[in-house]
């Protein structure tokens, strides 16, 4: 008793867990820079178009194929459309499709992976389903999805939101499988670890076990999947557009801008540079953000 009383009175209120995480995150230089860059990209593509006078689809045929100038800082394309405006409009689509599809794939993948790894009864069923999805040929699958769902989605949400939902879902449900396999593999090993056995012996429920003990320990492969997933989603979206399964043809996206510019690589190298740079920068910034987040969430690293 006396010992307790003699201890110094805490000068500050107990720190919340989230504050600890934030403090740790702040000290991670890469994460901080990554976060700032990512924020800048998002601001540029979503607020930029309000400030920039050119419309991304407006054709000014007299000023086509211009090199960068004050009027067109990134030049113009083969129809005289302003590249900066197109980059910003393209970024809106690519960033939102990339992030949303990645989140969807990550959610599905982690859920299925954890369930399959943790509950032995579900393992066979879920993993054979994963095999099935891995085996399905992507293109016919997408064609069927477009065939079945384009009209109803267009009717329900309007053409743009409809096609957005369709594309995000298409990418999401065709790219969750690696995450699921990886997470399951880790969970299989984790659930035989001592701390899990200890937690179980004190009667921890399955739900708490998964959220408190299993999930935090599989965060790092999930984070890697997330960064790779964004790149994958942006590229897949462009593949869909030039196959005619994606957004309408006058709707720019980064992947599409890059694809269109490849033929002109020798004449106008800057045209492949901008979208390539934008995609890489986004993926890199998310990668560092993910690194920082994972370190911050890991109680063993925190405070070191």
């Amino acid at each position, binding site marked *: 008793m006396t010992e307790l009383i003699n201890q110094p009175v805490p000068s500050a209120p107990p720190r919340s867990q989230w504050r600890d995480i934030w403090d740790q995150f702040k000290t991670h230089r*890469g994460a901080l820079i990554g976060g700032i860059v990512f924020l800048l990209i998002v601001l540029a593509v979503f607020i930029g178009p309000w400030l920039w006078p050119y419309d991304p689809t407006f054709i000014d045929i007299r000023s086509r194929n211009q090199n960068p100038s004050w009027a067109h800082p990134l030049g113009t394309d083969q129809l005289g459309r302003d590249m900066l405006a197109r980059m910003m409009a393209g970024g809106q689509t690519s960033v939102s499709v990339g992030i949303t599809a990645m989140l969807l794939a990550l959610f599905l993948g982690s859920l299925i992976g954890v369930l399959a790894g943790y509950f*032995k009864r579900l393992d*066979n069923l879920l*993993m*054979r389903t*994963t*095999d*099935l999805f*891995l*085996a*399905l*040929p992507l*293109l*016919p*699958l997408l*064609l*069927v999805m477009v*065939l079945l769902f384009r009209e109803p989605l267009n009717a329900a949400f309007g053409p743009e939101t409809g096609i957005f939902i369709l594309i995000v879902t298409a990418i999401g449900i065709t790219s969750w*499988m*690696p995450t699921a*396999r*990886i997470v399951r*593999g*880790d969970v*299989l*090993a984790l659930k*035989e*670890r001592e701390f899990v056995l200890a937690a179980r012996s004190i009667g921890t429920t399955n739900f708490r076990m998964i959220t408190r003990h299993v999930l935090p*320990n599989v965060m*790092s*492969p999930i*984070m*890697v999947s997330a*960064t*790779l997933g964004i*790149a994958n989603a*942006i*590229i897949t979206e*462009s593949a869909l557009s030039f196959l005619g399964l994606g957004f309408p043809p006058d709707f720019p996206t980064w*992947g599409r801008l*890059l*694809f269109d510019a*490849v033929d002109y*690589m*020798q004449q106008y190298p800057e045209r*492949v540079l901008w979208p*390539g740079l934008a*995609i*890489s920068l*986004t*993926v*890199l910034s998310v*990668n560092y953000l993910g690194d920082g987040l*994972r370190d911050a969430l*890991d109680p*063993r*690293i925190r405070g070191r």
Partner: protein
Amino acid sequence: MLTFTIRRLVLAVPTLLFISLVIFMLLQLAPGDPMAQVPLTVPPEVKEKMREALGLGAPVHVQFFKWIVQFFWVEPQVLIDHLFGTTFSEGQLRVLSWQTRSPVMDIVVQRLPQTLWVVGMSYVLGVLIALPIGIYSAYRQYSAFDQIGTFVSMVGFSVPTFFTGVLLIVIFSVNLGWFPSIYDTTHKVTDWDSFVFQLRQMIMPVMVLALYNAAQISRFMRASMLDNLNQDYVRTARAKGLGEKTVVLVHVLRNSMIPVVTVIALGVPQVFGGAIITEQVFKVNGLGQLLITAIEANDLPMVQTLTFIFALLIVIFNLIADILYGILDPRIRYD
């Protein structure tokens, strides 16, 4: 473990049959028509006749059953005939492509060499590059090596191969004239000179694909190593006075391999699936090109057969991965 393997192998049969049915239904449902590449100058009545000649008029279940018989009964006989010179398969109809009107399996066999040379080699190379980079990056987290490795691999993954491939061609074929831009699939390696030629024509597609594969695998390797390097058992091992090399390369590495094994096992079937875009860019004409041209031409027997072979490999390699988990971490038991 043995009973587990046997049980899984037995279970694989219905799984694969179900997968083949789903693929078949998907292909039936997909819009598209084998007549899409016939010029518009051919009148519709003639196209209708051509469809009938392909057997498109038959009911769906008859078409599916025909494929099952041809693939699981006739094709193995052809293989046996080929190996032992017997004549079991004579007079039986094999799986025929709609584009070429020739047996699908013959074309698949024809495509294997270039697919293995280019896509297979790039995968092996990718894994060999990725593992050391991943391990060292994690061991020296946030060192210059790690930062550069991260940068290169993320850029390598996020820049699509349709861009890097063309870039390499413009630099090395057009401007420098070092390597051919078009892969010669009829080339045979017989002596040193022809081997050098083979190397020259392989180098660009292999580099492009290896960069992409290495980028992905090294990220998982690094993340998994990082997780384990901070575990208590590492501290214990070091405290016991084990050498740093043993600690990292034996204890940590073994425990970090589970996600990496998963990723590698997922990638092997992709080798046989081919690399559609890279093959297209370098005109390698392997299995990837075969699949994409078959899809574009709506050549259903070809697409069905290729995807099914792909499914077979996926099931097998995922099983191998599951077995490897048990070897890497004996605590994992499936029984």
